[in-house]
């Protein structure tokens, strides 16, 4: 279960970056709003570093209003493609699992 959540978390992070680049703390807060998605906040940082090495996201430092720089993550073209491919597979998988779970209940 932990492994599955870990894998899904990458795509959730990428999905959050579709609308706009975000900084790490902001991403953590977005994910924390969804129950069960992020058990420990710190684990998001190794994930982001990993996504950057895979070139699914890119980083850029920007000055904040508070006067300190923030590392912003934005989705790359490769990340966008990976996310699109995930969306298709997820839709198929989800309906397949739902179908089986419903059958099991009856």
């Amino acid at each position, binding site marked *: 279960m932990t492994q599955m959540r870990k894998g899904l978390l990458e795509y959730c992070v990428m999905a959050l970056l579709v609308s706009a680049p975000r900084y790490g703390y902001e991403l953590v807060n977005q994910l924390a709003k969804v129950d069960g998605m992020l058990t420990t906040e710190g684990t998001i940082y190794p994930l982001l570093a990993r996504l950057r090495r895979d070139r*699914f996201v890119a980083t850029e430092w920007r000055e904040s209003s508070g006067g300190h720089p923030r590392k912003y993550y934005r989705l790359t073209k490769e990340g966008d493609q990976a996310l699109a491919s*995930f969306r298709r597979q997820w839709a198929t998988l989800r309906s397949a699992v739902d179908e089986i779970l419903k059958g099991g209940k009856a």
Partner: protein
Amino acid sequence: MSGPHATQIIEGYVARLEAELAGLPADRRRELVQDVRDHIGESRAALEQESDADLHNIVDRLGEPAELAREAREREEEKRSNGQHWGWIEVAGIVLTILVWPAGAILVWLSRVWSRQEKLIGTLIGAVAFVIGFPLFAPLVGPTLGRLVQMLGGPTPLLIPTLGFFNVIGAIYLAFRLSRRESALSRVTV
């Protein structure tokens, strides 16, 4: 206002994290520690009034340093996959594995999409063909060495199909591993 023991709480946490991260490459370690420090900074800035309890909550939510370190190691070891699986280097690597084995193997090693284990297996399968086929090249190597090799193995017409067979197997293996990677969901499974 800082919590009375702010420095102790934060530096204590960061020190434990740094200790747990030993063994990771230095730049990964530095990056993660910096990310965590930035996170703590942002969390503190969001507080109206800071108490020691707040700071304990911030580091508790970040997670145990050991857990963070485990996550960092696992993410580090995950198979490389950057979405572009079939670049020219991969196609050329596979084709040349069949046609010009050593050149194909070099390209395969230059590619970033196969894991080290896959590269090793692919190369070894190809190497079998090369070693078996070596007596075929003996006449080209030189009269003395050539004769020695011919004595040991000796070229037979059978070797030619064998040579091609192993290289094709190696190429199929590499192509198969790559096509498995196509599934984005493969990263979700255990």
